[in-house]
């Protein structure tokens, strides 16, 4: 995926999500509108139960919205009941995921944790590992390339997870509370890295967070409350 084709970033139009049916139905998302440009890191904040995870799951192609339209990169992935067929390949090639916990595969070393994604996409082991090492280098964990995940510090693990999210050069990264377990210095380091990567690879990044340490760094923030989004300018504070 060349960055230049990522003209749209993320576009979410009037997305709605209802869990369940009848009496027990929960309208988790009422009307969500968002746009994230390539190279941009946007914060998504809101109280518990406001629908943040629901939005990430819809965008991450693991649950299906009830209505609306979603575009990733230059591709419409969902349009009022229509969705693209191969969601698995979509997740593999177009979306990078970063979670609160790194969720590395415990039986693969650092390099292969990252290299697994290009391998799954059909790249040779050699090329996949080469790509993995480049990213580990960029994220300053290349010296731990042969270590097992359990031998890394929390911050190192999170950087490996970011490398994994980036390795297939997806146009979109979805990060769910990526800094929650980190102290403020490490949390800011993660945000810096995400901003660098966004710029370098023209990736559109959404960061869901409660984390007061990093909220001031976003230039743009979406607030979500009762399943509706409101856009807001952030402070855009430097993170170094």
């Amino acid at each position: 995926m060349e960055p230049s084709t990522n003209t749209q970033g993320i576009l979410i139009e009037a997305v709605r999500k209802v869990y369940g049916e009848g009496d027990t139905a929960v309208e988790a998302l009422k009307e969500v509108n968002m746009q994230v440009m390539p190279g941009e890191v946007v914060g998504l904040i809101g109280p518990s139960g406001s629908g943040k995870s629901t939005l990430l799951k819809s965008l991450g192609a693991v649950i299906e919205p009830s209505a609306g339209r979603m575009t990733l990169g230059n591709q419409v992935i969902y349009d009022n009941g229509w969705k693209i067929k191969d969601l698995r390949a979509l997740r593999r090639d177009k979306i990078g995921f970063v979670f609160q916990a790194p969720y590395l595969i415990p039986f693969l070393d650092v390099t292969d944790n990252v290299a697994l994604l290009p391998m799954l996409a059909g790249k040779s082991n050699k090329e996949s590992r080469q790509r993995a090492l480049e990213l580990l280098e960029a994220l300053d964990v290349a010296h731990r390339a042969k270590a097992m995940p359990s031998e890394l510090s929390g911050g190192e693990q999170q950087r490996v997870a970011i490398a994994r999210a980036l390795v297939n050069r997806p146009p979109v990264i979805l990060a769910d509370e990526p800094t929650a377990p980190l102290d403020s210095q490490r949390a800011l380091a993660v945000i810096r890295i995400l901003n660098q990567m966004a710029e370098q690879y023209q990736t559109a990044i959404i960061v869901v967070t409660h984390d007061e340490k990093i909220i001031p760094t976003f230039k743009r923030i979406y607030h979500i409350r009762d399943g509706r989004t409101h856009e807001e300018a952030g402070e855009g504070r430097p993170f170094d």
Partner: protein
Amino acid sequence: MISLAGRDVLHAWGKFVFTGMGLGLLIGVTLTMAGVYRGMVDDAKVLLNNSGADLWVVQQGTLGPYAEPSSLHDDVYRGILSMPGVASAANVTYLTMQVGEGKRDVRTMVVGIVPGGPGEPGYLIAGRQITRSHYEAVVDEKTGFKLGQKIRIRRNDYTVVGLTRRMVSSGGDPMVFIPLKDAQEAQFLKDNDAIINERKRTAANPAFNKPGVLDAVLESQNHNPFVNAVLVQIRPGFTPEQVAEPIRRWKRLQVYSRAQMEDILVAKLIATSAKQIGMFLVILAIVSAAIVAFIIYTLTMGKIREIAVLKLIGTRNRTIAGMIMQQAVGLGLIGFIVGKISATIWAPMFPKYVLLLPDDSLRGFFAVVLICILASIMAIRAALKVDPAEAIGG
């Protein structure tokens, strides 16, 4: 692509190897059970082979001499000798009994043979065949008796002059060969009180109260004129059936060929044991499957989060199912190797002959692989149900 299964196994090899060893011992037991059955069949064949007979002549209407008691007069063999196609014929007796050596007591099958005739052990591993018609014995090595030792059968002592190998009864008791005359006597021999009582009873019978008759009757009672079977060797150019047919018709005796005898031993005598062993094999297979299924299921359930992540980042269901199945088969392979080795080590220690056939191992191998694949199905189903959304969490 790297082998996810392989990496996982390397990561948790301790768990794998220990489970594999446990499974291996179970597989070892299974292979041994099959070996016990093969050993029984083989013992039966060796028994028939080493008897050197082509035909077994036994009491009419019996499956003798191994499967049912059979009793023939010891002069019957003369008539058989004169039948067409008969090269040689000799009486033989079989008697299961305890044989003593010093303080030791061994359960054996005592075989009465005519020295030099059919029925004599086919080969010796030490010593010589019986040459005298009294008080010599050739014993199977499994009795534990040594050359030159004196062994006690009933009231007489016998000198061990030769040793054989793999001569056991269909019940697995090692054989002791002694001269026919001695064997007939041993079979018949009564204790002194019984002899005196018998004499009194005979003497009290008025029918024998004539000069000379009582003595003759008493004399005849002291002798056992019965044997269990006549072993026949046939002349070249005759088929077993050609020789057997006239004996059946004219002598009114039951005659079995080698093939029929084998059928009696394997199909009738060993049949119940075979079913018994078959039952064991089924249970062991189920237990092994349960162990593999349980272990693989537990290992998989411990990886639910990783599986959700793998799915989220775009791993195919097929790849995940393959990973679990490969681990199950890997466990089976470790188990099979451990099982094969342990069975090979402990088979010779069994009191009865255990025959491990390469074919059985091969069959066992495929059964293990099949069982492991089936056992992994439960874990695979659980893994495929994992929702990739779980990786994102609440």
